[in-house]
């Protein structure tokens, strides 16, 4: 496996790893088939402009080195950012910051991004107001 030094560093010393007890958003994502699982916790507060910003963010990951490093990198990138800016970060940017990802590992960075978006969505209360359509899709999946 060809992992960059940056990626290996995040794997060895993951930043922002753990949970936030009083998180106001949690994103749970995973691929139960291959067994990968990720949980992103966020604590959103207002900054001096009165905008929502990521005061704190933490992750828990059960997965490969690329999954652990992607979640570590993502949390490092979004920490302190305004929510609206943080949402613009793409998985390609995370991968690039990690010094690139092997092709078969791209889905691991997708997981980190989705987890974060889900956490924000939960903060916005979106998971409670899921559209009927969305629910239908989910049920069809099961």
């Amino acid at each position: 496996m060809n992992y960059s030094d940056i990626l290996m560093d995040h794997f060895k010393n993951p930043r922002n790893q753990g949970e936030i007890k009083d998180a106001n958003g949690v994103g749970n994502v995973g691929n139960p088939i291959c067994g990968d699982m990720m949980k992103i916790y966020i604590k959103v507060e207002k900054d001096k402009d009165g905008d929502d910003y990521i005061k704190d963010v933490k992750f828990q990951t059960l997965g490969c080195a690329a999954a652990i490093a992607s979640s570590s990198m993502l949390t490092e990138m979004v920490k302190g950012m305004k929510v609206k800016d943080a949402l613009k970060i793409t998985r390609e940017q995370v991968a690039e910051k990690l010094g690139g990802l092997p092709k078969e590992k791209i889905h691991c960075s997708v997981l980190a991004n989705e987890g974060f978006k889900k956490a924000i969505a939960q903060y916005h209360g979106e998971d409670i107001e899921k559209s009927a359509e969305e629910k239908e899709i989910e049920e069809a999946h099961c």
Partner: protein
Amino acid sequence: MNKIYLDHNATTPIDPYVLGKMLPYYKDIFGNASSAHGFGQEAMKGIDWAREQIAELFGCKLKEIIFSSGATESNNLVLRGLLMSFRYAKKDNWDKKFHIITSAIEHPAILEPCKELEKEGLAEITIVGINDRGFVDLEEIKKEIKENTILVSIMYVNNEIGTIQPIKEIGKIIERINAERAKKNPKFAAFDRVYFHTDAAQATHYCDMKVKNLGVDFMTISGHKIYGPKGIGATYIKEGSPIRAVTFGGHQEYNIRPGTYNVAQIVGLGAAVELINNTKENAKINKRIEELRDKLTEELQKKIPDTFINGVMDNRVPANLNISFKNAEGESMMLMLDMEEIAVSTGSACASGSLAPSYVLLALGLSPEICHASLRISLGKFTTEKEINYVIKILPGIIAKLRKISPYK
């Protein structure tokens, strides 16, 4: 602490004795063994010597051994070579599909050629499963044999979980079926038989390799799994068993496997087998490997909670341990061990490239989560107790670290 190599199911280091035997054939004894002059004949002597070693291990005739480039080539030769000789045997066989039975836990070097023969429309393949202990079922194999069955190919020892398959018993079943066929058919001959092949690449160092005891018609071995060189193997082909060549060229190996003799590698294989033929010494070596493996297993089970052994421990080769640590992912474990200069392998989907968990572990009936959390730790004859102690010291911390990162507690 030096680097610790615990991936002997993947390959073994070359034994210095073996290397010593090979070196002259890279320097002074360079002749083409097919040449009639002195240079050639000296090289041929090396090949003859190597063949004798293997004949001793198998308890077979010299001419029943065909050298190859390794287990993959040997397996391909048996599967395709047997099928082709059946096709060429009679004119109306040309339109027939022949039936081959194999198991779900075979190496890709069996499964892939089988798939190819199926794709080409030449063969029908039946794949039997294994039970949750890690063994094929004799009754199932017996049940699957039908009129157009020409071959049963079952590996001797599985490369991931190390379980020793009941080769002797399968041999007996096939013998009985052939006896029944002979009773019903007064003209019973070579092309009316069911043949039996075993890929013994992982068994050679540990198991009874006498072909008469096993009842096999074909058997495959490989140099690099037994402290010999890579790129060399041998096929046992019982006298009278039909095999048609799959590559064509010179007259080497009775035209069955043409190509200039790879003399140094052949001598290397012979030397590796010579060491195994020293049965007393080899038994001692294997016992020591087993004791270290058992110590490792027990200590890891004691020190790390939620640990599972994949496949049963009895009837498993001494070198192999396949173990899962729930809520720790295999590739991550492997890399963290690698950072400590300890080499192992994993059946996790994350490490596979195809992102599918090990098909062997799935065939055992394990959940994807347990496959995800699996490590294969395989010991060798140069493994020391100090090395095993170091792994016992290091691994619990790695598992604890990964479990701490995991969302599951």
